């Protein structure tokens, strides 16, 4: 018997005034799997991620996460998700530790401090854990966003452009976070422009275009020159 999808999106539409950012996306993601969302700018990747994070309500369609309807059980969905937004994602005048404290308090975590410190060290942010994030470089901000999304070991990990401007050590650490999450049975959705990194870290790839899903393939099929050609064909 196959397991039901943890993330189940049916005919998702998101409109901002006249603009339809997402035009009928269907998506399933399963426990212990990492799924990449690929596509050009404006394909609807980040908006879809925002919907899954409970930040933007869907205009139409159904979205369930671990059986919870995102419209009705938004708070419960936020409890089990971890979200790294595509832009910034940090409160500029708070320190990393204050960010972690806020997340831990709202999620009622206990005994989280050691894990948080360990993650900050892995992402080479241990030295700056008490410094306000306003002065962080772009890469430092991205790395901290990944830490914040994953520190509470969420059932669903949503990473939107986590590799953007991140150095190789940060990329490696993010790979480890994804691998750890998969190992403990979490569902990972990763939105990125970097096809190679998506192929390395995910098992499945969904290609979005113009707010719709145009393909769902094994990530391995997107690898190498052949994969690049196939990907380009899907984008055009």
């Amino acid at each position, binding site marked *: 018997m196959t397991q039901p999808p943890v993330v189940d999106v049916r005919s998702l539409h998101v409109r*901002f005034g006249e603009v339809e950012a997402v035009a009928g996306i269907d998506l399933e993601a399963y426990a212990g799997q990492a799924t990449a969302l690929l596509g050009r700018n404006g394909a609807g990747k980040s908006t879809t991620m*925002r919907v899954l*994070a*409970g*930040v*933007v*309500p869907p205009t139409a369609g159904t979205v369930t996460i671990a059986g919870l309807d995102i419209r009705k059980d*938004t*708070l*419960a969905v*936020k*409890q089990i*998700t*971890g*979200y*790294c*937004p595509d*832009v*910034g*994602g*940090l*409160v*500029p*005048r*708070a*320190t990393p*530790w*204050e*960010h972690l*404290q*806020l*997340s*831990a*308090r*709202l*999620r009622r975590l206990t005994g989280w401090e050691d894990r948080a410190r360990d993650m900050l060290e892995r992402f080479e942010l241990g030295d700056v*854990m*008490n*410094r*306000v*994030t*306003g*002065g962080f470089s772009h890469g430092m901000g991205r790395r901290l*966003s990944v830490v*914040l999304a994953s520190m509470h070991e969420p059932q669903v990990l949503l990473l939107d452009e986590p590799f953007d401007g991140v150095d190789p050590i940060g990329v490696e650490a993010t790979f480890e976070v994804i691998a750890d999450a998969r190992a403990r049975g979490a569902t990972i959705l990763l939105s990125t422009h970097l096809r190679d990194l998506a192929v390395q870290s995910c098992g499945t790839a969904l290609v979005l275009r113009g707010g719709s899903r145009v393909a769902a393939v094994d990530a391995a099929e997107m690898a190498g020159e052949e994969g690049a050609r196939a990907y380009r064909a899907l984008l055009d």
Partner: protein
Amino acid sequence: MPTELSSTDVLAPASGPTVVAAARRAVEDVAILFRFRKQAVRRRHLARALALTFVVITGLVAVVPAFVPGAGGEHTKAFDIFLLMPSALAGFLVLSISSAIASGGGRELISRDQASPYPISPTTDHLGALILAPLNIAWMVQAWVLLGSMAFSFGPRNLFQAQVVILLWLVFSTAVGQVLAWTMEAVRRLRGGIIAGRVLLLSLGLAAGAVQLTGHTLDLLDRIPTLWIFAGAVSGWGARWWLDLAYLVAGSLVAVVVGAIPAHLAAHRLPRDEARMETDQHAPRSMPRSVLGILVRLDRASVWRSVPMRRGVLVLAVGPGLVAIFGNLPWASMTILPGLVASGGALLFGVNAWCLDGRGALWRENLPATPTASFDARTWVLLEFLGCAALITVAIGALRAGVPNPEELSALVCTLLVVILQVVGAAMRWSIKNPYPVDLRSARATPAPPAAMVGYSARLATSTTITSLCFSGFAHVPDWRLSVMFAIPCLIWSGIRLSRARNRWADPVVRARVVATTAS
């Protein structure tokens, strides 16, 4: 044929433009940036209406008071105002200087982050700040008070000449304020400059206090240079008037040009205040017991770790308090102060309260907290920010006002509560209705574009002044309960409006729009 430089050739250094060419280019850039800002105005018809209203009000204020009964008369109220005019001119200069210094050199025509990819010179920045200086309700009201007072105290005869001098004085004061603000900013950016700036301000404050305490204020006011300017303003077409004109025009031009020098100096130095804030370490504190507690703590940190808010609230809290002391303001009139301070405080961040989270708004929105908890925390932090500032002002003003009677005390306490809730309610409503993506890192940053700020400040100033004047009147009525009776419906009304804003914030569609905008 040689096609490239040999190893022994020396590249000629690229020569920069001449000073005149650079200045011309800066003026052109100001026009370009101004058009760019104009394009971003959302409701252009409203902006045009506001601009027209400003011109009409200025024209009316400059002329109409001269024709009301009692205008220009001797041994009347008009004559008392006439005698105070030189002090009022000096007061405007002080206001221009202090507000430009507090905002780190004046407002930005384009924010630092937006400007960074473009070759925008400090001269352009300086000229832009000069143009934006009047887009400030404090500047406008003071200017109207000066023009109106001049018209009323002087009467219709030779009014044109007098008002021309007043207008030139406004320009001159603003330009001089800008020069001193840039100079102060250039000094603050030196090693030890922050301490030097604080020592200077403290010394000026102590000197002013000493003058007041030793009873030399009137002697000083009788000798201020604005007497000379004022004498020229009221001399008709006489030589003194022409001399005034020449001095003010020349002085303004010199100030505009000279201001570019400290602006360049400041631009080439690191903004130490901001840099310190961005690299500050804050030792971890114990976990608060409640959800509201941690939300409030984070919001509070966002407010008090921001340079424009710290500087702004200091000026707002202390400035009116000092005016109350030096002006020997009685308790009944002190009811004006909380509204003024609360309105000013809300303009530091409250009118766009969700911008405190910056790009972290998206992450925060994914946290499992009820939307109303976030709203309550933000509202509380705004309340305490405005409350602290208003209380400091009243405390300073109280130093010279003696012991209030029950009616005065009741009026003041009621004013404090009513205007603060009034301002918080309005600010939270506007924050939801018109969010802006603003980064409050720079000391010069404002929570909304200049035109929107004028609209907000005008509305806040009008509503709080009317409320304050009502309570000021009640302070003279020998029954302290009157203020309380008036305050209760006001508080209920503001509470209802705040509650409506809270319900609106609970709507996920509304919240998504605000979050997406502030984080963009």
